[in-house]
């Protein structure tokens, strides 16, 4: 395989290109990001729903991920309310997945033999997705660069066969590769465009929206409406549109959370409500798979 040379550190976009090429060669369907606000690559239906049921599936894609509470108005060198994940999902999990993963690091200029690569226990659970998995976070010289998870349960359903999910935090990975202390100093392309040029303004404005201006009264109402809509679509047994509404619910909840209007205890209740939606969707999806 021919990747861009290692002489110069890879730009942000080249890192993405290389990962896409690498996983494409491994037989993955290279998808584009899902067109809704989600908290992580896992929420893409190509992962959540496709990991359910008996049919084999391999995919890789970039997913912009929104975590309203992580916004810092663009002031913090390590924190963003919007960032990118590179997501790989393979079902059933292949025997040589570790080798595949380590070689993928080589494809973006990290020679695993020169670094302290560690698979550190990190059992993953997504209460809103009713999902759980066992695996690791992968550390490279103490820096978490990926999540590596064997799904055991999704949408409340036991996974059979088991999928493996690999998630690369692209900004962190690139900061490591490019040796940058601030995410905003990342070199985006060969023309010298930086991450700051592309995203600083939006970090600032979205932080203001998430923390100050989002109309919470309306959002509470919207949550109810979306929840109702999801239930209706589940009744109609159309799982994909139902799942879209559920994703929107989840994002509305995240903004409310960022606005600080949901207490610790109330959170549990909202999360349970979203989980119930996901579970009902999972059920409908599974029925369509066998």
């Amino acid at each position, binding site marked *: 395989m021919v990747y861009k040379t290692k002489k110069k550190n890879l730009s942000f976009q080249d890192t993405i290109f290389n990962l896409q090429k690498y996983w494409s060669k491994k037989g993955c369907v290279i998808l584009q990001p899902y067109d809704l606000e989600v908290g992580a690559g896992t929420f893409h239906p190509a992962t959540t729903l496709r990991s359910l049921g008996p049919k084999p599936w391999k995919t890789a894609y970039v997913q912009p991920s929104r975590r309203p509470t992580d916004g810092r108005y663009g002031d913090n060198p390590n924190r963003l309310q919007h960032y990118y994940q590179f997501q790989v999902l393979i079902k059933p*999990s292949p025997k040589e997945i570790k080798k595949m993963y380590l070689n993928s690091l080589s494809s973006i200029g990290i020679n*695993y033999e020169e670094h*302290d690569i560690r698979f550190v226990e990190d059992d993953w659970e997504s209460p809103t997705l009713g999902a759980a998995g066992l695996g690791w976070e992968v550390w490279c010289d103490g820096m978490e660069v990926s999540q590596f998870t064997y799904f055991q349960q999704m949408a409340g359903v036991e996974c059979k066969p088991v999928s493996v999910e690999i998630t690369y935090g692209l900004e962190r990975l690139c900061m490591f590769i490019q040796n940058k202390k601030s995410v905003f100093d990342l070199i985006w392309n060969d023309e010298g465009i930086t991450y700051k040029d592309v995203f600083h303004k939006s970090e600032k404005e979205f932080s203001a929206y998430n923390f100050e201006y989002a109309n919470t009264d309306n959002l509470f109402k919207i949550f109810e409406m979306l929840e109702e809509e999801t239930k209706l679509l589940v009744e109609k047994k159309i799982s994909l549109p139902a799942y879209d509404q559920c994703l929107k619910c989840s994002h509305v909840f995240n903004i409310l959370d960022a606005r600080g209007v949901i207490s610790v205890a109330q959170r549990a209740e909202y999360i349970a409500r979203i989980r119930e939606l996901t579970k009902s969707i999972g059920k409908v999806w599974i029925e369509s798979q066998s």
Partner: protein
Amino acid sequence: MSELFVELFSEEIPAKLQINARNELKKNIKNFLIDNQIKFNENFNVYSTPNRLVLHIDKIPNEIKINSEEIRGPNVNAPEKALEGFIRSNNTTLEKIFKKSTEKGEFYFFKKESRTIKVYDLLEKNLSEILTKITWNKSMKWANYDLYWGRPLKSILAIFNKKPLNFVFNHINSSNKTFTDKSLEEGLKIFNDFNSYIKFFKQKGVLIDQDLRKKIIQNKINEIINKKNLKIEQNERLVDEIVNIVEKPAVIICNFDKKFLNVPSEILITTMQSHQKYLPTFDKKNNLTNNFFVVSDIKDTKGFVKLGNERVIEARLSDAEFFWEKNKTQNLVKQVDKLKNINYFKGLGSYFDKIQRMRKLSSLISDDFLISKDKIEIASSICKVDLMSDLVGEFPELQGIVGGHFAKFQGFDKEVCLAVSEQYLPNGMESKIPKKMYSVALSLSDKLDSLVGFFGINLKPTSSKDPYAIRRMAISLVRLIVENETKIKLKDLIVYTCSAYRDQGYDFDTKKIQNELSDFIIERLKNYLKEKKIRQDIIESSTFLLGLDDLLKAYKKSLCLNKNIKKEIGFETIAVYKRSSNILNAEEKISIETLGFADPGLFKNDYEKKLYKKINDIRKYFLSIGKDENYEESLKILSSIKNEVNDFFDNVIVNDEDIIIKKNRLELLNMLCKTFDNYFNFSKIEA
């Protein structure tokens, strides 16, 4: 004599699971060998690295001799099919079967000749079963397989007497090969004995033996700290974890910019220990230094590892510093009002509402504790403000502690700061417990407010579910009272908490909450006593009559009786009580109503009079002791009635013909039992 050598190769198994798997494997193989009467070197060991679980036992005989034995078959009257089956399963013929009578009737028998069994065959046949018996605290499935294991199992190497043992374990065939490259799972290599295996890996720098790894890590760390005049905190748990997440440990000393030492040390330590698994260092005065240890799994020949880790901690600490600088100057008092926007719990108002209640409650407690009302009210008002800070958002485990630092920075009274810092302590059975009265008062009011609130909105835990950790809260409450010997009126405090809720417009049923919470807290006290290894019958007795206000008493009395139950004062007390109460219990069935006192005018002899006098002496003792009861002394006094009671029973017949006399004697015994109730109700004690 031969050695058994097994290696289970898998993807990286987490430290705790590894330790557990080692113990399981050791136990299972040991049981198997003992059950089959196979001798072995009892000092054998099970080793592990993240990828390899290794069993090595030597001094196992190659053959075992089994003496001849008679095997019983079906009854002679059983259908012919049974006999055929018996013959088949023993691999024999009809000629070798004989009949024999036993106590249970006449049976067919087969005499199995003495024979030798090859241990190799036995192991090959049973290893799969032995591996199946390993239980994991947490396990997973992968791909299409049905096997549950800590992490995906990739290969099994099994050798006995230098020969491979071939068996099938789920989807895996054992062999004499393993992957020498754990990263890529490549480099298959044959090993025929443990020694060459260990040697091979040692040459590659891989230490299979976890104890050896631990020693090497500790030696290296000690060498460096001695040279640099540093100390590390003894943290077995962290060290054990580190030992089990590396196979070729390399200790690297790193440092971060000294400017971060201005951030409260708890924040730095939490970042290093729980987030990064680094070992922080301290100077001789126990101040945190900017040096820390990283244990790498690779020799850092190019310096990448040190550089990388220093960069990571730098990023994490600058994050923490940023928040600390931002949060510490945010005026705590001015922020109190903002707590109105933060819901404490649906149905229990905001955190602002909560601290209003806590303020009232802690102020009432301050009267009992003789501490300053002003100070505890201030502590209550500001104690939850840190929940709104970025730092607690980042380090939820440091809630309270961070608030304490804010308070200190903003010049609050020392005791107030400490109370804020310790408000969540204790947190369950094991955790540290505050000792200063301001801290105890604040923690008590926090827990009481929560308990009353959750019971008020009917979110009591069920036997299987306790999502809000209410049990832990109640256990913490019990500990606060018992371990600090606080003399508070819990019943009143619960009523008062209810009224604080009612003042805010909550429609709480005080009586109901009081009853339910009482039972709940007393149940927790029982658990607590159980934890302290108090006998179950003593636990039951101590909480039978003593109420919510007597948690401390119940605790101390149980402890005291538990300690003395085999000694004379405990033993005799119970014996005397039992002797009297047995008679009463027998009579109760005939139903005689007792008045609660005997009439001395009806006594017929001195034994009755003496016993009566002694009972009254003991009653006087209990009336006089007040709050400073010495429980051992009380037991001693109770047991001292032994002679009077024995004389009474030896010489007096309770069951007198005259029903009035008989009743009076029963009254006397009833008085005695009631007197014993001053300690506690002994009726549930098993003699």
